[in-house]
Structures are given as structure tokens and as C-alpha cells.
């Protein structure tokens, strides 16, 4: 058990969680059929807001992370109004451009420390470690304090993710979720049915940005350093790939995508130079052979039917 819980595995598990949260963020915008390529930009707004609030203003972490998300979502509403009048390809480009603008601004502002980035961000692990040691607990069974605090971080992230999944599943069964699905299926038809498409598209966009911002804030407080390079175009492509590989019909799709694509580079360390090449080839192959992603509604129905029959026999 203690071997399984070594720092390396725990760290990877933590990254899986953050990436899965990012997967949920792109799932939410895709659930209205909108492709937003600005998730890395929103993540960067969240991460920087959060890091500046904790490092420079001394705000506690549990306040700063949601505030980062709110900031990202606020900005998404401002740019969403003009951008969401656009459909499909236009929106993708506008949001891609938005991500670039954010990167250039972050690179030039004084408060974000330009290309050097912000370092010395208090990590969640050390914070929890301090709280634990203030209770006088430095060892638990065979585990060191560091292991326990990382484990607790993992539990917190797991709770956040579980809440998001729960939220998405509930959302799908609500009026809002049905409106999202209607817009995805056919926007003009949805509008003719009396759905305020602009409102719902903006809502999905802002929700996606909120979650991306929170993920950004979390990642800032996990790695202790953020720089403008962390949120460039490649990050966007990576997030997109979670949804493309896993599938974007169901919320579990991008999460599975994030899991696979975070673990794969660790397993294939020796091929790390070719990671992006593999990603690129993967995008092309998925689009050609399985555009709906690994997990679609049919897949779930198929396995449910198969397993259901299996248990009856």
C-alpha cells in the first residue's frame, strides 16, 4: 500500500483529476454543439486571478479558487455575447483568437510577471500539511505527512469532480439540459420551438469557462508555478483531444479521455518527443474512424444490454 502511494503516482493521479475537470468544461460547451477553443485562455484567467489573489493579496485558497472561476466566467460572458451570434467555425476561431489575446496580455502585464510567470504559489499539499501538523499529527500508520496531505488533496479533487459529474447528470435531465440537447441537434428547430438559443448557448459557454477557471486555479495551487506557456495553443488542443477521444455525448467521455491521455504519456516516457505527433495522428484517426469518440450513447446502451442479458442467464 505504501509503495502504491508513492509521491509520483499520487502526483499523476492529481493531474488526472485536474484534466478530468477540464474535460467536463469542454463537455459543457460542446453539449450545445459549440466548439470553444478558448478553454486554455479561461484556464489561464482562472489560474492567474487565483495566484495573484493568494500570493499578492493573501486571500485564503478556498476563496481564491472559486473567485478565479468567477473571473473566467465573467469574461466569457463579455466575449460570449458577440461570439455566440456566430456558429460553428466562426466561434471556434473567435475563441482561439481570444486565447491568443489572453496569452499576449498575460505576457505583457506587470502583475502577471510577464514571461517569467508567478512562482512560489502556496500548494494545496503544503497547506494541508501545515494544518495537519498544527494538530500535532506528523505520521499516520506507515505513511508520511506528505503522502497523507497529497492523498487529502486527491480526495478534495475527487469530490469536486464527483460533484461536477453529478451536476452534469442532473443538468441533462433538467429543462436547461434538454434545451442544450435541442440546440445541439438543430439550432433553428430549437429556436422555432421557443428556446432562447442565445441565452442557453451563453449559459453553456459561461459554465464551461467557470469550470475551466476553477481547474486553472486548482492547477496553479498544485504546481506552485504558472507561466504563460502553460496555457498556450497546445493546452487547448490537449483539452479538445479529451473530448474527441473519449466522446462528447456523455459527461463520462471526456473524463475517460483525460484519464487515458494523462496516463499514456507517463507510460510511454521513452516516446515523449513524439507525444504531440501521436496526439495529432490520434485526432486525425479518431475523426476518420470514430468521430463520436470512444464512448457514445450507443456504446453505453450496447454494454448495458449485453451485461443485462448476462445477469439474467
Amino acid at each position, binding site marked *: 500500500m505504501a509503495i502504491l502511494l508513492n509521491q509520483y503516482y499520487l502526483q499523476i493521479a492529481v493531474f488526472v483529476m485536474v484534466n478530468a475537470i477540464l474535460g467536463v468544461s469542454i463537455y459543457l460547451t460542446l453539449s450545445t454543439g459549440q466548439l470553444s477553443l478558448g478553454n486554455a485562455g479561461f484556464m489561464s484567467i482562472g489560474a492567474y486571478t487565483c495566484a495573484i489573489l493568494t500570493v499578492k493579496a493573501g486571500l485564503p485558497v478556498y476563496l481564491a479558487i472559486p473567485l478565479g472561476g468567477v473571473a473566467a466566467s465573467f469574461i466569457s460572458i463579455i466575449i460570449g455575447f458577440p461570439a455566440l451570434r456566430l456558429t460553428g467555425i*466562426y466561434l471556434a476561431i473567435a475563441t482561439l483568437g481570444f486565447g491568443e489575446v489572453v496569452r499576449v496580455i498575460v505576457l505583457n502585464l506587470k502583475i502577471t510577471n510577464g514571461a517569467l510567470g508567478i512562482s512560489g504559489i502556496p500548494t494545496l499539499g503544503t497547506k494541508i500539511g501545515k494544518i495537519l501538523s498544527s494538530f500535532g499529527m506528523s505520521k499516520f500508520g506507515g505513511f508520511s505527512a506528505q503522502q497523507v496531505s497529497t492523498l487529502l488533496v486527491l480526495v478534495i479533487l475527487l469530490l469536486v469532480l464527483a460533484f461536477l459529474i453529478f451536476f452534469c447528470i442532473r443538468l441533462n435531465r433538467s429543462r436547461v439540459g434538454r434545451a442544450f440537447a435541442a440546440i445541439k441537434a438543430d439550432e433553428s428547430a430549437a429556436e422555432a420551438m421557443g428556446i432562447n438559443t442565445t441565452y442557453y448557448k451563453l449559459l453553456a459557454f459561461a459554465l464551461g469557462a467557470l469550470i475551466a477557471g476553477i481547474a486553472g486555479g486548482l492547477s496553479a495551487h498544485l504546481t506552485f508555478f504558472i507561466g504563460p506557456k502553460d496555457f498556450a495553443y497546445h493546452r487547448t488542443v490537449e483539452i*479538445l483531444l479529451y473530448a474527441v477521444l473519449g466522446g462528447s455525448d456523455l459527461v463520462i467521455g471526456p473524463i475517460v479521455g483525460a484519464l487515458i491521455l494523462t496516463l499514456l504519456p507517463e507510460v510511454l516516457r521513452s516516446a515523449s518527443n513524439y507525444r504531440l505527433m501521436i496526439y495529432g495522428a490520434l485526432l*486525425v484517426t479518431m475523426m476518420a474512424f470514430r468521430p463520436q469518440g470512444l464512448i457514445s450513447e450507443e456504446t453505453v446502451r450496447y454494454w448495458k444490454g449485453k451485461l443485462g442479458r448476462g445477469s439474467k442467464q
Partner: protein
Amino acid sequence: MFWQQLVNGLTLGSTYSLVALGYTLIMGVLNIINMAHGEIFMIGAFVGLYLVTYLKVNIFVAMAGAMLASALLGCLMEMLALRPLRRRAVSHLAPLISTIGVSIFLESLALNLFGPQSQAFPTELATVQFELGPIRITLVQIIILGISFGLMFILRFWLAKTRVGKAIRTTAENIETANLLGINTNRIIFLTVALASGLGGVAGVLVGLSFNAVEPTMGLSMGLKGLAVLILGGMGNITGAMLGGLILGIAEVFTVAYGASSYRDAVAFGMIILILFIRPQGLFGKRQGGRF
């Protein structure tokens, strides 16, 4: 100062126009955005650079070589990444995502093949200068202006007057009808992609000459600017792409000259967001999405 900046802006802008023309051609015929165009441009620049550096060929031969190599690359992309998607009905986002895949594949390939550092052309050309009244123009700038404007006008004429040009325009108008009229649309699509990529390759050499730097990441930034021009000029609009490129080039040069030099890369997208606010169909586009 003003006139000098204007010339610099025009030179930069004409390369943007050339890149944007590639996007526009593919957009017009296939109705997709080729996100890998920037990377094809970058590969073209590298091919040109290696031809000049190692085979010691003339710069114009290098441009022709770059054009050929990029056109081949474009055809390869058409076959592997785009054609399979046309055979079945997929979401309109699928080709976009597929070409994003091609783009990061090519960028990473270039990083592995050529290394991350920026490489320069042998510099005899950049030092030759002419004085014309208040402005100073380098030989490189003259080559860039000549080649890009020349190519643009040849393209315009070719599309308007020749048989193949008409076939391309017909396919752009409506692919099914073009098929019914006996045009081999698959071949036309192939040709368009090759043409667009070839133009991108030439632009790559020109940009590599003007900045005297060729690096794997140049594709991404140039690709994004080409996209900006595409939106600025209106999708699938050739005149729009030409003028839009010039406008963007001049706007960028003036931003650098009169103040905010570090925000240069934000100009393009600041403009996009503004345009999308005011005139989503682009400066020169019609509401219904004008073609050629």
C-alpha cells in the same frame, strides 16, 4: 517615417495576404478551415531554407521547390485527413478537428527533424538596399512585394478566365451541381488544396527571408494571423483576403512604430473580435457568404 512604415506594412501585409489566400481557397471550395495551413507554410519555409543552404540554389528555385513540396504535403493531407470525412456525413466540426490534428503533427515533426532553434537564410540578399526619396527599401522587400502581388494577380486572372479556374468556381458554388455538370470535383478539390498549400509554401520562404528566421513555431503564429485575415476579409472572399492581409500588415507595423510594440500579436485578434462585433460577415463579405 510614415512612408517607410507604410512600405514595411505593405511588405508584411502582402505575405499575410498570400497565407490568407490559401485559407480562402480551401474555405471557398471545401467549406472548411484548414487549421494545418500555417504548418504547411512552415514546412515550405524549411524546404526553401534547406534548398538554399545545402544545395546552394537560387532563391527563386528554392521558392519553386518549397511550393512543390508544400503542394505535395497538402495533397497528402487531403487524402489522409479530409477525404475520409467527406465520404460520410459527419459534423461540420470534424474537418476542423482533423486539420488541427495535422497541424500539431506537422509542428512536432518539424521540431524533431529540424530542432527548435531559429535558423537564418544566408544573408547576401538582406543587405542590399535602395533609397527612394524618403524611404529605404531592401531587395528582400522588393522580392516579397513582387512575388506576392504577382502571384495574387495571376491567381485572380486564372480563376476568372481559364477553364480550370471556372471549374473551381463552380465547385465552390455548389459541389453537387458541379458534379452533375461533369466536373471531376475530386480532382478540383485536390487541385485547390495543392494550389492553396503551394501558395502557403512560397509565403513561408518569403516570410523566412523577411524576418531572416525559420523555426517550427512560426507556423502557428502565421496560421493564426491568416485566420484573422480570413475573418477580416470575409470567408471565401479572395479580394477580401488580399486587402485584409494588407490592412492587418499595416495595422501591425503602425502599432509597433507608434507605441505598443509588445502587443503586436494581439492586434490581429483584437481586430477579429472587433470585426465580429460590428460586421460578422467580414469587411468585404456578403451576408450569404460570398464566394470568389
